């Protein structure tokens, strides 16, 4: 399948899945971080202006810390998310999908400079688009990865239909198709679902709403619903 899924096999013998994040959301997230950093520096600049030269020294110190260690702080202590990444639902993880460690975070942010060369993160973006998992140079060296944080999904409800036993000889693939149609009843529009159900008219002999209800009933049965309701 041509997608950005990233699989890791754990020692327990199961596959963990994550979606690698591409250049565009990462650039946007970076933009947000730059905005916050500028805001902090401007605020500090105004506050420290009263302290004259000593204030200037402190300001330089802060700008140094913000430039190199702002991402490190958030990546290690705030679950892999700088404020910008949080805004776009991204997080940094080690490439075995464990939380990023100090060493890896420091390294990927030190190498940020190489990614920046020759201007405006050109090297980083080129490296990202050439690789399979959108890793910039710093990610490659540190063995890290930016993935989408999976949104907490609310528990799914099934449509209100009483389950019906399916006809005989329904193949596994067909069963899965019906089950996922049933499960996604809230995500697709009613009209589209009817349209999909109509494709099966030659087999079910039902059109429109009736056909859809029949398919849902079968799907619900396949999921384990019995008799009257769940």
């Amino acid at each position: 399948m041509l997608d950005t899924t990233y699989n890791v096999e754990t020692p327990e013998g199961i596959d963990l899945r994550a979606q690698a994040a591409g250049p565009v959301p990462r650039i946007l997230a970076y933009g947000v971080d730059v905005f916050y950093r500028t805001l902090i520096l401007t605020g500090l600049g105004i506050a420290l202006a009263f302290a004259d030269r000593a204030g200037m020294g402190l300001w330089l110190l802060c700008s140094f810390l913000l430039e190199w260690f702002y991402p490190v702080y958030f990546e290690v202590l705030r679950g892999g998310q700088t404020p910008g990444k949080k805004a776009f639902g991204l997080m940094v993880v080690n490439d075995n999908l464990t939380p990023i460690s100090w060493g890896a975070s420091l390294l990927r942010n030190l190498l940020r400079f190489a990614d920046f060369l020759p201007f405006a993160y050109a090297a980083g973006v080129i490296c990202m688009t050439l690789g399979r998992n959108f890793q910039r140079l710093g990610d490659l060296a540190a063995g890290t990865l930016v993935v989408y944080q999976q949104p907490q999904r609310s528990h799914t409800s099934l449509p209100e239909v009483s389950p019906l036993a399916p006809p005989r000889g329904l193949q596994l693939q067909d069963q899965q198709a019906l089950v996922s149609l049933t499960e996604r009843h809230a995500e697709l529009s009613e009209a589209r679902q009817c349209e999909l159900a109509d494709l099966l008219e030659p087999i079910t002999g039902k059109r429109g709403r009736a056909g859809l209800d029949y398919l849902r009933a079968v799907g619900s049965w396949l999921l384990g619903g019995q008799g009257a309701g769940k």
Partner: protein
Amino acid sequence: MKQIDFENRYRDSWERLEQWLKAGGGADESAALDLPARYRVLCQQLAVAKERQYTNQLIDRLNQLVMAAHHRVYRQQTLRRNTWLWYLLAGFPRAVRAQIRTVWLATALFALPALVLGIGSYQNDALIYAVLSPEQVLQFESMYDPGNRVLGRERGSDSDLLMFGFYITNNIGIAFRTFAGGVLFGLGTVFFLVFNGVYLGAVFGHITRVGFVSTFYPFVIGHGAFELTAIVLAGAAGLHLGRSLVDPGHQRRQVALRRASVEAMKIMYGTFLMLVIAAFLEAFWSSSTEIAIGVKLAVGALLWLLVFAYFALAGRGAAHLEQAAHLEQVPHLEQAAHSGSGVRRGA
């Protein structure tokens, strides 16, 4: 078993685990739970769900839960408390000695251009202007003119702080860039080392030529012990990264880079510390005019000696500690090996 029965049977335990993870899993929770055991059971349930071709939604949910638990179980923690102390006393100099050939190469890349330009601009009055603009030359000259008894500029303690901020930002930035350039097949590191060597050599040669020796050398000798060494070490770390890309040996380039970067970072932590020390010295000690020149030179020479002795001798007798250090490295290396074999693309 139908999916709904499966879900009904385990839903409670999933929800409990979810809550526990969300609460941060504090040890004081009344619902203290055996995470590894729970995690293994959960993995088994996910595997069963996949094998039985349950729906994507259930598998996604379990996958998510497994991942959250996985994060908790495999969080990398340093078990030893006094790692930092060990690193300072033995780990850092040992890491440097392990890369000694790269360190010499970086030294050569830095010192040779400095030497050439130094001698050149000592002999030739015009050579400095090939490197610096006339305004910069004037600025340097006025900074170290023995005529004014203040080094740099009129300074109180507040401007010491200003200069400290400036040195931190500037010098550590240079060292970090020198290191980062290494990932571009070492070219960036070579560039920064040579560039800084040329710049420094030109200034040294020129200042010596105009005869401001009595102010310039006492000023630079103290912090130079830390600063120049640190720049060279950052360069060595960068070159090590670059070498792993140019000549990865029997490994894939990416794996070679990962392994090299583990070694390089061991040098970089110490380099960072040295640069902070250098900035302190430069801002608060080197610039002081109260201290006699003889004292400054003596202390500076002592610092150089100290730095070299540290790298040459510290941690040599620490073979028994080495094992402990290796234990720490294991998770990292395993990770590198793991990424080589265990990771694959979506089916």
